Every structure is written in C-alpha cells, then in structure tokens.
C-alpha cells in the first residue's frame, strides 16, 4: 500500500530525513519509535502533504501512485488520515460540520452520495460510543479550548468516522490518562482489518501492549536504523536508544 524509498527531506536547508525506507502493506500495524527530533512528525507531515518540506531525493508510492502528485485533500480523499501530534485549534469552525464535510468529500470521491443529516448522526452516535467521546465536544469549534486529552480523542473519533485506509497516528497516546489510552486503543483495534494499515508513532511501549504491532521500527537521525517485531519495543524500553544506535554503527 505504502512504499517509501530512500526518502530525503529538508526544512529550511536542514536535512531532517536522510534516506528513509519503509514498506507498509494492507492489514499491517507498524510502530515507529525514536528519540525526540529524529524526524517522526516530519515523516508524518510529508506523507499527509504539508507545505514547506523540500523532498530532495527518494520516492513514495501509495497504491502504486506517486504520492507527491496528490494535494493534501486528495490524499485524504484517497484514504490517508493523519492524527496530529498537536491538533490545531480553529475558532469559529464547527467540529461536527467539519467532520460531515470531510466524510462527504471522501464519499464523493468514492462515487457515493452524501449522507443526509439523519444518516450522518447515526454514524456519529455509533463512533462516539466506540471512542467514548463526550457529546458536548461535537458542537464546539474544532479543538478550541479542548484539553490535551480531548484533542487526541477527537482525532481518533474523526478517524473512526472517516474510516481511512492508511491511518498515521502521531503520538496519539501522549497526554492521555490510562483509561483514555485503553479506550483509544480499543477504538483503533476495532478499526483494524485486512484492508487497512496503521502507522503508530509513539514513545511508549505501553501503547503497544494494547495495540499489538506487526512491526516496530526505530527512527533515529532521519533514518530507520532497526526494524523488528514487538519484542524490539520491549527491549528498547529496557535498554534505551543508545543501545540500538550502537548496534547500528557496529553493523
């Protein structure tokens, strides 16, 4: 579904990604771990199509197409969803209207008719339960005045409604209390199926107890320096990143 080859990215003349390779197939869950500033969010932003990044080398294919040919909105319509590490507050834009417009834009791309208010509400109710979302957040401005945890939950709620094919969750677990973490993990798990892929960026192996990944990658200084299964995450937790870095140098 997603093939990243030798991806090199700069921001304002600073090389952030330095030749990154990653292949994600439908049905898989990949966890990406790595120290602060190693380029995890940069990777997520580049995949979602944010401006301001200079792709100096490499290629990304999504469903066999060059991802860089697509605008952010076309990527979203074709099933890419990014849950932001820091969701932005948008005063004056209604949370639930945005979600409805998003869903209907995606449906239109798929050749499906828009949902009317009643049908949409049914979907919303069902997904709200799934992630235990507080109803009072629906009619507020997008993320405005939401607590850190509420913002993260709202991202997962959007994901549940939009049912993306490729979901990239950038540290969705940070800032969640233990109960919220479990709910969010359950939400993600119910979305797991053979046609969907999930990329989790996280610092904590704790999340991976709830969402068990098929692969774990370590991103350090703009490259994936080690990949393995979930035992890699456990080992990382014990030994820290220096251990992998040294291993990578030795190899």
């Amino acid at each position, binding site marked *: 579904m997603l093939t990243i080859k030798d991806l090199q990215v700069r921001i304002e003349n600073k090389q952030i990604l330095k030749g990154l390779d990653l292949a994600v197939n439908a049905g898989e869950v990949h966890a990406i771990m790595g120290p602060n500033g190693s380029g995890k969010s940069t990777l997520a932003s580049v995949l*979602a*199509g*944010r*401006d*301001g990044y200079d792709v100096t080398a490499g290629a990304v294919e999504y469903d066999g197409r060059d991802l860089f040919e697509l*605008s*952010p*909105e076309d*990527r*979203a*319509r074709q099933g890419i*969803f*990014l849950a*932001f590490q820091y*969701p*932005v507050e*948008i*005063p*004056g*834009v*209604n949370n639930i*209207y*945005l*979600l*409805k*417009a*998003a869903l209907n*834009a*995606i449906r239109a*791309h798929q050749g499906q008719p828009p949902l009317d208010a009643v049908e949409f509400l049914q979907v919303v109710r069902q997904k709200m339960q799934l992630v235990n979302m507080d109803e009072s957040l629906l009619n507020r*401005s*997008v993320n405005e005045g939401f607590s850190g945890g509420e913002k993260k939950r709202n991202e997962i709620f*959007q994901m549940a409604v*939009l049912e993306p094919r490729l979901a990239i969750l950038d540290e969705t677990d940070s800032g969640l209390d233990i109960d919220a973490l479990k709910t969010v993990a359950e939400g993600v798990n119910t979305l797991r199926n053979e046609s969907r892929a999930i990329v989790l960026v996280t610092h904590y192996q704790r999340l991976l107890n709830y969402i068990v990944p098929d692969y774990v990658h370590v991103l350090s200084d703009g490259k994936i320096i080690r990949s393995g299964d979930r035992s890699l995450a456990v080992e990382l937790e014990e030994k820290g990143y220096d251990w992998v870095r040294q291993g990578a140098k030795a190899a």
Partner: protein
Amino acid sequence: MSEAAVSHYLAEYDRFRDVLAASWPAQRRADALEYLKTHGFPTRRAEQWKYTDVSPITRRKFTLGKSPGAHIDDAPVEKLRFSRLNCHELVFMNGSFCAELSRNLRLPSGATVCALQSNGNAELLERYFGNEEIGHAFTALNTAFLNDGVLVHVPDGMEIPAPIHIIYLGGREDETQPSSMSHPRNLIALGRQASASIIETYAGIPGSEYFTNSHTSIQAQAGARLDYYKVQQESRRAYHIGRTRISQQADSRVDCHALSLGGKLARWDIDAELVEPGAEINLNGLYLTSDRQHVDNHTLVEHKQPHTTSNEHYRGIMNGRSRAVFNGKVIVHEQAQKTEAHQSNANLLLSADAEVDTKPELEIYADDVKCSHGATVGRLDENMLFYLRSRALDEDTARSLLTYAFADEVIRDIRFPEIRERLEHSIAGELPDTDLIKEFMQ
C-alpha cells in the same frame, strides 16, 4: 477644491432651505454653515484624515435627492427587512421618510419613535441634543441640511421589546438624474433604566452613485441599556460618511455592533463618552473590503469618571486592491480611576495588494486602571489550512471557511438569532467562495 465644494453646498442650501424640516432650529443650520465656511472640508494634512482623502466626495456635485414619488420600487427594501423578526421598521429613500414602506410603528404609550420631518418634537430635540458641538465638516453639512431621520425617545423605566429597524436606501433609478446626497440624522434618547434595540441599515440601489452623510446621537441615562447595530452595506459606487456619538450616564450599558460592508469610500466615526461612574460600552466592529474600496473606521472612547468600562474588538478582512483604516483611541481622564478599557484590532489580508493601516491609541491620565490594547495584521494560518485540507476539504473551501470564521467571531454572540443570521448572510455575500461553505453556516 475645498472652497469650490463649500460654495456648491452653500448654493444648494439656498435652493432647498424652504423645504428642509421646520422643526430643526434655523440657528443651528446657520451655525453649521458658518462652521463650513470657516473650516472647509478636511484634507489629508489633518491627523484625523491622514489616510482618507475625501476629495472624491467634495469633487462631485451631489444634490439633495428627490422625495420618493408615486412610483416606489420596494424590491430592494424587502431584501433588507428582517422577515422573521417582529420589529418596528422605518424606511427612508434618499433621506426622505416613506410611510408606505414603513410598518409596525405603534409603540408602547409614552415612547416616541418617529420620522423627524413629520413629527419633530422640538422640545425633546432641544432637551437632549441642544448643545452638541459640530467638530467636523461633515457633521456641519448634516446639521445644515438636516431634513429627516428618526427620533427615538424611551421614557424612564420602559423596555421596548421589539427591535427598531431603520432602513436608509440611497441611489437613483436612472443615470440621467444627478447623483444625490442625503443627510439622515438619528436622535436616540433612553431615559433612566430604559432599554431598546436599534438597527440602522444603510443600503442602496446596486451600482448607483450617491452620497450618504449620516449622523446618530445617542443619550443613555442612568441604568439605560441599548443594543445598537449599524450595518453599512451601501452600493459599491456610493460614498458614506457616518458619525455615531454616544453619551452614557451612570451604570448605563451600550453594546454597539458596527459592520462596514459596502461603499466605494466609507468613513465612520464613533465617539463615545462615559460621563458617569458605572457606564459600560462594548464596541464590536467588522469591516470587509475588496476591489478598490476604501473604508476608514475611527473610534474614540473617553472615560471621564471612575469605574467605567469599555471593550472594543474590531476585525477587518481586506481583499483585492482595497484599503482599510482603523484608528481606535481610548482616553482615560485623570479622575477616571478603576477604569477598565480593552481594545483589540485584528486584520486579515487576503491579497498582496490590499492594505490596512491600524493605529490603536491609549491615553491614560489616571493611575489605577486596567487597560490593554493590541493590533495584528496577518494572513490565513497555514496550520489551520493544512488541518482542514488533511480532512479532505479542498483549498478554496478551507480558505473560505477560515475567512468566514474570522469574520463571524465578531457577530456570533449577537442575541437576536434573526439579526445574526441576516448579518451572517450579508457577510457571506462579501467574502470569496462562500457558496462552498453553505453547510457550515446553518
């Protein structure tokens, strides 16, 4: 040029003096003409007019508009009414009252809401508005040519539940007629503990050139409460000069909503004075400009006594090659301790050729006060745009949505839903691509 303009208006005055409202004291007209002769029209050398050149107005030979004849086209008026809101509605065309188009003018007994021409209550005028200073040329012009307008008087303790809507429609139906001018005057006096809601709408026949020079005076006595709206949506070829003066006594509260949406060249001054303790004014303003529009908003709030409060929040969105000016001055006088005064002005530039000059000014002569002010000029936030696009909204829709949301902030707390919706609709009509965001505006 100014001299030629002054002579033009003196000649016009001689032509029309006999038909102007008799209830307005002749002495005040004479004083106003004298002021005009002495001071002339402002030039950009005057600090108050630094960014706004009024010569497009003074160059043109506007003449007093004809009173509406038998044939009145009410279609433009219908669009301006608040159809689902029960209100008292007074309609003026080119400055003259149209009884046929006005409606629901029966008020609780003791209250006065009437056209000045037909029922100028000279005693009330003198009592409340007898000693107003002139202060600038356009006020002088209005005072000299005063012909019609609205008098609102709400006696002590009375509440007028339905809003009073005053519609001024300008313009000519065919281009062979000369460009007209009108000088509406609104006089609003609220007694102690009285309350009312008043909306002034200024609009015109689309594409028509004319000049509106309006003046509103508001007196709020102790404990009075006024919701005041002024919506300037003149034709894109019209000239609009407006001034609203507000004087507030103890514990009175005025909420002012100021919308500048139309006009080719528009200037609006609000001068408010809080003359007794406990008075509070809230000023919400929005100006939208595009093409080659020039819109200038000046506000002045004077805190003259202790424990007075003002909150001012103006926003502007500039597109095309338009230009906006915001000048907000707050003066806290020496004896006005415990004053709270907050002012902010935020501007959104949608095009590289649009411009805004913003100047918040705070003059504080008291030492125990809470004051703040700030101004920003910016473009749409890239993080917000990206967020919306990552949620499948195309770029035009995302831009339109953020632009509309920026404007809506100023009016979303208006307490009459019908007024808010109509204003939202008017705003949407002035902003780019709002047809894309209909589903966000319900």
